[in-house]
């Protein structure tokens, strides 16, 4: 039987300003029928180009320079337009990132799905029943109603279900999934991944799964290919590649992940030094050699072949040495940040609502916690849980409702920055998620830092210059970066500039709002290391907002779990992760895919996040809680249970019935064993 998809020595180039830039170099891969193949790599490595080449939908300036692409044994570039349409109708479908944009905003979703049946020649009268069937298949509970909706009336998870329904309606041989869950909440992502697994078993469709997230790939795929700078550098079965990588790049990626058992006070994260070569760069020798710890003269002069041995393949001169690469990170153990008992920030009865009357959105309610000097408090929760609103209230960008109390250094903190003293403003700073939009595009790095220092500390002349240079060195940049404009810097470097700016006024509290979620894992590791180091040397307290539980676990001393504007649980990081913990925390933790793949005992959340304009009675979580006790949870607000001095949660369940994480946390200090350690990617 022919393979579902074959790339034969595939090369793709883009024409940019009249010059041809090669982005894929001689990719060889086969996906058997019914097989799920994962393609991983960091941004810029050519993953999406490969995906679009597979459906013959390269951008206007894209061009297949050599090789062939076969779907069902047909060379897709030999097909005439009508045959290509037939192929798309019956044999290959694609689902991509950002479902809100992949659906036509001005047609009801039912109509959009029905087009697939229209093309298949199904009589018009049968469309509604067929659409309802396929929507039911992607686990949409009320297909008749959803069919009439427009895309903007559905949640992100629902939109992606509709997109998937459309893709599988024709029962294709091959389904190309390009980052299908990126940008969705962890709990929604888990549902969508479940759905894809389920459909795969039912339909026996082959899948090309593109993702930057190793853990998602580990959960979904049978085999994995690793792309680096447009070359396939390693390919193997999923369980083998993550346990015994045979290419230094694969090993490096795995080591970058903040894993369970690693936290900032034990070791730094491994990073991959250097940068991805630019597209079209001329390279002699191995493309990864400049960043590789194993590289020697041979690597720099001769490009290794992509050698297959059994069902594994690698493009490395020394695959046997990869296993000896130092997994445990050779990094100085940081001096644990002084977790004294001094409370730098005390918040109580914090509430924030928007609007009036029936429209009143109660985004934060009864929030209260302390932040200690030099510690990191991680804030986790789905989007819409109020994390960012809380951060804005602390910063003074939003005025909290009357009755809220925020105290900084035992002094009450006014609701707006205008009413705060300059010292208070200086002391609380923020690093945003997206350094692209947070930095002024027209200002050089020097100008940005110099303005901040001038405004907040009032330094002038030589003192200011000295401070700028000290800051730039503190974030591991050099003087030559000072004249650069943001567009001349990579994402990681821009985030370093944003961090330098935040540290310019020597803050005591730094709010990090998703500081690494726009970055690749190797860059993320470097930024997390930097934040950990700066905290140790400058004794800053962090409030870390992130949806990535691995990041939160690595950097946080304590964690607060938020849901619908309330803190459901707060406690020391390890205690919150290992449990006993709140049912919502359990659901959040188990929704995150891990590299070991085993994730069958998942706590699944049903239903959508209720509206903040119409909060549920009793416990806010009862509408989605798998352990809801009728008559109690939906009537009365839960009591605060104190598990340890420092670990508090709000739940009606008796403490001995609260769940714990099934996987045991690793004993401290042992090297992580990838086979059984949960990795939160």
């Amino acid at each position, binding site marked *: 039987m022919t393979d579902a998809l074959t790339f034969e020595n595939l090369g793709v180039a883009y024409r940019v300003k009249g010059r041809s830039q090669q982005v894929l170099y001689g990719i060889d891969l086969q996906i058997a029928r019914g097989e799920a193949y994962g393609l991983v790599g960091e941004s810029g490595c050519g993953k999406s180009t490969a995906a679009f080449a597979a*459906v013959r*939908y390269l951008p206007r300036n894209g061009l297949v320079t050599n090789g062939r692409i076969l779907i069902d044994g047909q060379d897709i570039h030999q097909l005439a337009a009508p045959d290509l*349409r*037939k*192929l*798309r*109708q*019956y044999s*290959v*479908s*694609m689902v*991509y990132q*950002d479902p809100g*944009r*992949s*659906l*036509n*905003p*001005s*047609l*009801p979703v039912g109509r*959009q799905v029905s*087009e*697939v049946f229209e*093309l298949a020649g199904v009589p018009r009268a049968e469309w509604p029943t067929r659409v309802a069937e396929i929507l039911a298949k992607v686990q949409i509970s009320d297909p008749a109603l959803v069919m009439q909706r*427009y895309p*903007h*009336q*559905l*949640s992100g998870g629902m939109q992606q279900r509709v*997109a998937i329904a*459309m893709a599988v309606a024709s029962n294709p041989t091959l389904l190309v999934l390009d980052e299908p869950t990126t940008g969705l909440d962890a709990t929604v992502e888990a549902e969508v991944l479940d759905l894809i697994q389920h459909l795969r078993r039912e339909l026996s469709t082959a899948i090309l799964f593109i993702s930057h997230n190793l853990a998602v790939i580990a959960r979904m795929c049978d085999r994995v290919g690793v792309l680096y700078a447009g070359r396939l550098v390693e390919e193997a079965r999923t369980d083998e590649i993550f346990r015994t990588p045979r290419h230094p790049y694969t090993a490096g990626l795995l080591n970058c992940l903040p894993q369970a058992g690693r936290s900032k006070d034990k070791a730094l994260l491994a990073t991959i030094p250097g940068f991805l070569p630019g597209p079209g760069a001329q390279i002699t020798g191995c493309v990864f050699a400049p960043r590789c710890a194993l590289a020697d003269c041979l690597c720099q002069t001769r490009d290794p072949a992509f050698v297959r041995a059994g069902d594994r393949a690698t493009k490395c001169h020394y695959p046997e040495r990869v296993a000896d690469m130092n997994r445990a990170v050779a990094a100085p153990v940081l001096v644990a940040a002084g977790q004294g008992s001094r409370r730098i920030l005390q918040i109580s009865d914090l509430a924030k609502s928007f609007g009036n009357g029936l429209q009143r959105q109660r985004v934060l309610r009864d929030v209260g916690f302390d932040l200690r000097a030099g510690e990191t408090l991680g804030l986790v929760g789905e989007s819409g849980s109020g994390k960012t609103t809380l951060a804005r209230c602390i910063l003074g960008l939003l005025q909290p409702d009357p009755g809220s109390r925020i105290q900084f250094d035992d002094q009450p903190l006014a609701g707006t920055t205008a009413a705060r003293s300059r010292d208070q403003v200086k002391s609380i700073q923020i690093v945003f998620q997206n350094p692209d939009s947070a930095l002024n595009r027209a200002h050089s790095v020097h100008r940005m830092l110099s303005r901040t220092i001038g405004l907040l500390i009032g330094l002038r002349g030589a003192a200011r210059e000295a401070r700028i240079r000290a800051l730039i060195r503190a974030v591991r940049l050099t003087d030559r970066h000072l004249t650069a404009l943001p567009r001349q810097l990579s994402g990681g470097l821009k985030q370093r500039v944003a961090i330098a700016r935040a540290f310019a006024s020597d803050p005591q509290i730094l709010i990090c709002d998703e500081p690494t979620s726009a970055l690749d894992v190797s860059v993320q590791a470097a930024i997390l290391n930097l934040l950990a180091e700066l905290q140790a040397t400058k004794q800053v307290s962090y409030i870390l907002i992130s949806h990535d539980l691995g990041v939160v676990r690595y950097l946080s001393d304590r964690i607060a779990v938020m849901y619908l504007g309330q803190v459901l649980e707060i406690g020391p990081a390890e205690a919150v992760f290992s449990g006993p913990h709140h049912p919502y925390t359990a659901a959040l933790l188990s929704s995150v895919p891990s590299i070991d793949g085993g994730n069958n005992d998942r706590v699944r959340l049903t239903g959508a996040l209720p509206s903040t304009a119409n909060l549920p009675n009793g416990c806010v979580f009862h509408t989605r809680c798998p352990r809801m006790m009728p008559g109690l949870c939906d009537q009365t607000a839960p009591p605060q249970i104190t598990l340890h001095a420092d670990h508090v949660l709000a739940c009606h369940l008796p403490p001995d019935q609260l769940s714990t994480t099934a996987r045991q946390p690793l004993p401290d200090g042992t090297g992580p064993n990838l086979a059984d350690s949960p990795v939160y990617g």
Partner: protein
Amino acid sequence: MLGPFADPKAVETLNHQMGTDRPVLVQYADWMSGFLTGDMGQSYAYRSPVAPFLGTALLNSSKLAAVAFILVVPLGIFGGVIAALYRGRPTDRILSVVGISATVVPEFVSGIVLILIFGVWLRWFPISATWSANAGFWNQLYHLILPSVPLVLILFGYIARMARAGMIEALDADYTRTAVLKGLTYPQVIWRHVLRNALLPTISVIATQTVYLIGGLVVIEILFHYQGIGSLIYIAAKKKDFPMLQAGVMAIGALFAVATLLADLLYARLNPRIRFGGRE
């Protein structure tokens, strides 16, 4: 009105008659309340009520605007769509260059050239847009073709550019990719998925330009001897006929508000994101 050597007594009497000796605010309130109840005052120049003049002028202007509108909207949209479909190719370049060139030529230049070629030299069209009293529909239309061409020239480039931009955005959108990858034919993709989303922004542009078609035609109307609102305002200004001027400007303002409102309603009707409000 009474001439430079008028008797001060007579001036005072006239001022009193016309109410111009009262404070400005009182005069304004008086005029405003009159306007709202349909009484637009007396024309200084014609010594008769303003309303009938304004009515005729508005009707005439609407006829001219309608002809220009019916010509330019389909042409502009068609041009823009074609340019977008052939993006970057010669067809696109030619359409863009022609559109922009036509837009920057003032209407008095193109009007005169058109009169010279089609009215004086070829004698295909009358050089005056004013028809005889008992002219029928086709005759009136015949008179209006030539004056509407300069308007079409000015607006074509503008509408085509908007339509082109909207089309290109929609062609590059993810939902268009979804439609193509479903295996739909090219015409199906364009008609069902691209056009509807592409032309939404163009609608609001067209609506604001409609008002220009009615109210901004001073030059065209003078050039073609046409009794529209533009020439009414021009003549009123020349004769210092303030009630007439006020009423004319007010009418154009009201038209602008109504046209914008209609455009917004149409936009909402065609755009489900506005029709059905936010996420439920």
